């Protein structure tokens, strides 16, 4: 398992990536992280919602309550322009970091 520090740093990155596709609500985000990482990564609700709150405050995402007939209302988040830039930057940084670490540690990167 990944250590806590690393996970903490990467979760916003993952959230941005998931929101790039389409607006999603919190539960969907946590499910997708777990599913798409094949269970390696997990975000608990306890940290997810404060995180979303912080990301919204930074202007990376905006949330909106959406009512659907016959359901409780849900808060959907979508990416802002700033969020998209942050995602690009983090994506670069991450790839470079991974490559660099890989070169040093002798890990072949995908």
């Amino acid at each position: 398992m990944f250590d806590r520090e690393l996970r903490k740093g990467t979760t916003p990155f993952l959230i941005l990536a998931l929101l790039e596709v389409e607006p999603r609500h919190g539960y969907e985000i946590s499910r997708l992280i777990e599913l798409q990482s094949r269970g390696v990564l997990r975000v608990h609700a306890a940290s997810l919602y404060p995180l979303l709150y912080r990301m919204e405050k930074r202007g990376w995402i905006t949330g909106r309550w959406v009512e659907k007939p016959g359901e409780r209302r849900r808060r959907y988040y979508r990416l802002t322009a700033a969020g998209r830039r942050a995602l690009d930057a983090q994506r670069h940084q991450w790839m470079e970091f991974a490559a660099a670490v890989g070169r040093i540690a002798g890990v072949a990167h995908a």
Partner: protein
Amino acid sequence: MPDWARLLGERLGERIASDARVSDVLEELEQHVEDRYRELRGQGVPPDEARDRALAEATSDRALGKWLGRGGRSKKVRPIPPGENGGSGTGLLHDVRYAVRLMRHSPGFTAAAVAALGLGAGAAIGVYTLLQAVVLRPLPYPEPDRLVRLWEAKPAEGLLHERVSPVTFLDYRAAPGLFEDAAAWWVPEVNLVDDLGEPIRVATVSATGNFFDLMGISPVLGPGFARDSALEGDAEAVISDRLWRTRFGASPDIVGRSIRLNGLPHEVMGVMPPGFHFPDETDLWTRISWNLAEHSREAHFMGAVARLGPDVTLEGANVAVRTVGDRVARDFPQTNEGWNARVVPLVDEVVGVFRPGLIALFGAAGLLLLIACMNVANLLLARAGARQGEFAVRAALGASRKRLMRQFLIESVLLATAASVVGFVIATFVVRGFLAWSPIEIPRADGIAIDAGVLMFTLAVIGITTVVFGVVPAAQASRVNLQSVLRETSRGQVAGHRGRSALVISEIALSVALLSGAGLLVRSVSALLAEDIGASAAGELVIDMQLPQLQYGWHGSGGFYGQLLADLRDDPRVAGVAAANFLPLETGWRVPFGIAGLVPLEQDGQEHIAQYHSVSESFFDAAGARLIEGRGFTARDDSTGRPVVVVNRTFVERFLPDTDAVLGRTLLVGAHQIGPLGRRLVESEAHEIVGVVADIRNTGFTAPAEPAVYTSFRQFPFFQAYLLVQPASTPEAAVSAVRDAVRRLDPGLPLGSVQPYDRVLGAATDANRVIMLLMLVFSGMALLLAVIGLYGILSYTVSMRRREIGIRLALGARARDVLAMVVRYGLLLGVLGVVLGLMLAGAAGRALSGLLFDVSPLDALTLGAVAVLVLAVTLAAAFAPARRAAATDPIRTLRQE
């Protein structure tokens, strides 16, 4: 369905703030727990367990509760990314420690960089040490910039450094507003004989009374020369501190004492401060006691120094001096036609060829240092490539670009400092060794020392080299951004590679420029050495002698030298001996002459002038001169014999061009007596020309000979003479033979200096030879560094392109093609460097012109040879990496991918 809001409230405690956004979060959380519950139930988890698990996940983080309690405000704590200055001053120290560790971990790289830079720095510091002491240091006199030497000149004959006539000197001194004052001196040969010790020769000048005032240096003891301008009076002498200590035991009551110089009593008027020996290495100054005006305008035998008036520039002074010279030439055409004068800053005069020489060497050392810097920059760039990973990680971990650059610069500063320390040590030893080894007299060498100036210069070297070799790689390395690391063989490295190629091209260009300079000096020196000066050495010694005139008189002088030569010829320790009042390259007395039936002694106030030299029998043999016609002198050509002379070839060409029979002609020797020094013993003016000798240079090493008349030393003796002694066995034995013979004739007579004859002849080219040697060493080192740089970049290229080469080979390229490809690349760099270097050499050649003799700064042969040499070396350097490339195994290379 449980009441999620209540359950969450229970678990998160009382501290839930009633903020709108926080209640949003709570609602989302509630929703989330509900979704989770449904999911778990869908998986068949019992309701109670599903409820507890969903709630536990949503509240597992205790921080959540706190966060909600704070109303969503997060604590403002930003972690310090590693590699970023935490704000304290320890970052710098940390960086330095890191850099030291890094240097220790790659000793090969560190040693190579420090060695290359150290050599360059050592050369620069060493030359600067000399430059500072010899050229840049002001002369130790008040307002030294205003002191000039005054020379007479006859530009038409290439004479620019002629001593001045006492009469004409007075004209120049009197020019209004030009000089504050001017002093003149001449150099008698003086023996100091007293009962304090062995008789000694003392380096003496006889100067005008204002000499010390003009120089601005007063005696530390005694009043100096009497200030009244009376020319007649008691003979006065001032002595140097050195002579005072060695001869007179630093006796405090020396002033007022009488000493005998050449047998004449002189009153000691003062002791000069330590270190004052101007001009040259003078230890004794006597006051001229004859009237300068009562002499000849043709007798150019006095040194002169002047202090420019306030606000008089050097150019202005030269214009004014020429005006006076032109007027004198108009007024006294028979003696001064074509003559003029010029002033030269005293410091230039003292330093001579060392000024252009040391400046050129300093330039060369600077270029060498620059090349070394480029080499190290090259190494650093290569290493920056290898360290991209390290920098990328540090950047990714949050190190700022500024911080990375600082780290890199600190490493550069450390390297430069280490190299400068190494260079400093090298310079110290090399300068010391050079001074000990150098066959030449380096003026002002006593001041050569590692002092504050040199240390400042070393610091400057550290700063400059750091900037030159460190900044570009630092910028490059800190730019490492992270993209190029990812795309491994993409633009980032191509750019670095291009930078390195440019560095190598510049290195080659600079070494071509240096080699060209060295080549030109080699050509100059070989031209100098090939000069036929009409004299050559074969192991002879030169000993100079001075007879006290009172005791001997003219006839006694002739008799003394005649007897000495005869005695020495019988001595088995001596294989041959001759005497003369001037050595080859020295300028004789310029005295009028006539030729019976052709050239009257005087015609319409016009005189014909030739140099007079008095030489003994077998002098021409001993001096290595060639007799063309007739005979030299014999021992029978004495005061009782028929008066005879030998003339030089220029004399014949100038004055007897159409005459078949030169021998037997009668030369009219106008001079009866030459100053207090020499006198014709034969009564008749008429001398038979009995021989013609090939020209012996008599105005300097490179100037053509002036017409010269050689008289027999026995017929026209001088008190002062040089003995040319050929030792039969050892020089020491020959010298003791001379000492014994002299002692037998006169126990009170000291020997003057003894020096090898080849040093006398070679002295004129010594400085050029030494400068040439140093230049060769510097340019050789430069070429070596450039070649190492080239080799490095080619090796690097080959290793970077290994895959491409592998593919080429796999696709059917022959090893030969690969070899050619790499060699071609090396040659391309070489050719670009050579072309650039030749242009540089063309521009820089002019800086050397003061040192060149008989060779143009654009000498095609030299530049061509340098180009060929550098290209050949380039080719050789390219070959090893090319062979390695050609030997690439395609299968293995491709498999590594």
